[in-house]
């Protein structure tokens, strides 16, 4: 249905209002002693956060793939290969959300109790994760639902360890510090060269999408996408500036953190042994917590611990 001009503005303001109320509401829920997700990130711009939460999720998954006897459903649900148009691409995107652990667990339990299947396509899991697949078998099915549920659970957990950024430019600067840590020592480059690289990545992403999927209110969506494009330029400029600073901020992401070292290592490390380490930065603390949650979830899947233990791990 097409709304009036006033409705479009109202819609945009309503979304901002809802986000604000989500923040207030979440605070009230915590105050009442109920299990609640942390508030949505709240930059009043279309790009609401940098990629720090994605980096945390990806590294958590890298560590989790070393969990001994990791069950196949969870392994599929957190698959980190972005070349695969399946689960791992989904789990990492859920991030911080407004649903609580007690809302996510029934989804997990439903799949845990009856196993994985793909009712829509009647396709095998092997086909779904075939790297040569063109994605035709990737729609529907429990793997993707489980990916959302695990992504939802872990997304809220990791958000507590996410970077504190006051606005988009600040988030970009902190993302840049993460990339400095990941990249290590490399050759000198200029601001213009770096911005050209980031801007050049965008058409590659859009190519892989085929097309934008508009929101239900398509007219309001045009205004949001217009602002989103401007935001991306703001982000890129701030990222480049932050990346090229002489002394990047390592308070959030410190390459010497044992969990970060383990995530960047190709060798496998015993999960329980790794968890005995002490993190030396907030990002590392997030990895430790995320790994603990996924390790517990894996134990729950094989009935070694109870659901209450999983909920406790997420707290």
């Amino acid at each position: 249905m097409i709304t009036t001009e006033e409705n479009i503005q109202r819609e945009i303001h309503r979304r901002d209002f809802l986000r604000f109320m989500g923040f207030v509401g979440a605070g009230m829920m915590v105050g009442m002693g109920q299990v609640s997700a942390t508030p949505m990130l709240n930059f009043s711009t279309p790009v609401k956060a940098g990629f720090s939460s994605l980096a945390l999720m990806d590294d958590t998954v890298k560590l989790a793939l070393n969990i001994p006897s990791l069950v196949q459903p969870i392994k599929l649900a957190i698959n980190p290969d972005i070349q695969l148009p399946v689960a791992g691409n989904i789990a990492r995107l859920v991030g911080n959300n407004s649903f609580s652990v007690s809302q996510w667990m029934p989804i997990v339990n439903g799949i845990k109790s009856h196993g994985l299947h793909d009712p829509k396509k009647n396709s095998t899991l092997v086909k779904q994760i075939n790297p040569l697949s063109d994605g035709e078998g990737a729609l529907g099915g429990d793997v993707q639902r489980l990916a959302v549920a695990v992504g939802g659970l872990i997304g809220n957990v990791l958000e507590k360890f996410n970077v504190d950024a006051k606005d988009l430019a600040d988030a970009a600067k902190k993302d840049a510090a993460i990339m400095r840590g990941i990249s290590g020592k490399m050759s000198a480059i200029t601001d213009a060269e770096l911005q050209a690289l980031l801007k050049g990545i965008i058409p590659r992403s859009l190519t892989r999408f085929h097309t934008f999927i508009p929101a239900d209110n398509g007219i309001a969506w045009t205004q949001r996408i217009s602002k989103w494009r401007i935001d991306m330029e703001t982000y890129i400029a701030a990222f480049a500036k932050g990346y090229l600073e002489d002394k990047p901020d390592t308070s959030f992401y410190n390459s010497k953190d044992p969990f970060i070292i383990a995530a960047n290592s190709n060798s496998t490390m015993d999960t329980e042994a790794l968890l005995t380490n002490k993190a030396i930065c907030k990002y590392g603390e997030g990895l430790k917590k995320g790994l603990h949650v996924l390790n517990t979830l894996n134990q729950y899947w094989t009935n070694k611990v109870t659901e209450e233990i999983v909920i406790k791990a997420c707290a």
Partner: protein
Amino acid sequence: MSFFLSSFLKAKSIVTKRYLMSEHITHIAVCEDIVHLANVMPTVEKSLKQSVAHYPDECQMGSAARGNHIFALPIIEKYRSHWNTPQWNEEAEIAYAFSVGWICHRAADLQMKPIYKVSKSDENPPASKKANRVYHDAVTLHEVYGDGKIPPLSPRIILSTATFEQDMRSLPATKGIDQPNLERLLNGLIQRSLLDQQDFLDDEKDIEKWIAQFLTKQQRLGDNLQWYIDAYQHPVAERTERYVTSMNYYNANDSIIKLARAAQQGNTIPTTEVTNALKTASTESQYAQALERGCRYLEYASQFFRKEIDQAKAEVVIEISMGGGE
């Protein structure tokens, strides 16, 4: 069919027709070439031209979006009474720029989609069943954008040979940053921030419905970029012949394409030449025919703007009512 049922089916098709033709580079290229030609067509409304001139990026993003059949005409209807009044503003122009992009998207879809069935019918298609359009994007990057040397209409779109290159190695910045990891994370940021523009994310409170919406509205990285890199860097002669040459995808000597290139380079193109070229385009390449189709659609959209035809008639002549496209 009732209006509500019709609207429902249209809305549903935004997310269910996922595998139609929709290669990004070709869509933005066809769009900007149509815009260049339409700029000298007196039959195309100034409100449309002005909006695109002010918001070229929005126009090209519209050409890269689904939903043309749902939003393009209602946008024109919504703001047309504002034109030449104080109510005409940035919001209207952004929406109109998107509408033009959406209409151009439809022209490309309806022109190209039938020929994409060729690779789908192949018993053993190379890399994917989408080989047609992968090869078309590779050709378009070279022919329309000179491998990135000719900038797109939107200054925000940056193309180069690195667009379809492994890890973008030819860009100097890749010596100073871990490109694969940067792309992994930036891809995620783009996907996640586009999800943030969706209504359901905050509005849907039922977790099962939320999951269902998430799965259909997330921007999947559905295509493997390697297909495009291979087609662009190392095209296979047999596939080029099959997917590009034999179906006459693009011919730089087509009169309408020559005019589009001239306008792209900043030259003034005479209206009469465009008019004549549009008349002969039906015998030229698929790309030329897509340009003709788009110019024709914009003329009809202009008639709709002037209330010379109603929405039902406009949906027939812009080939919305016949289905297809996305």
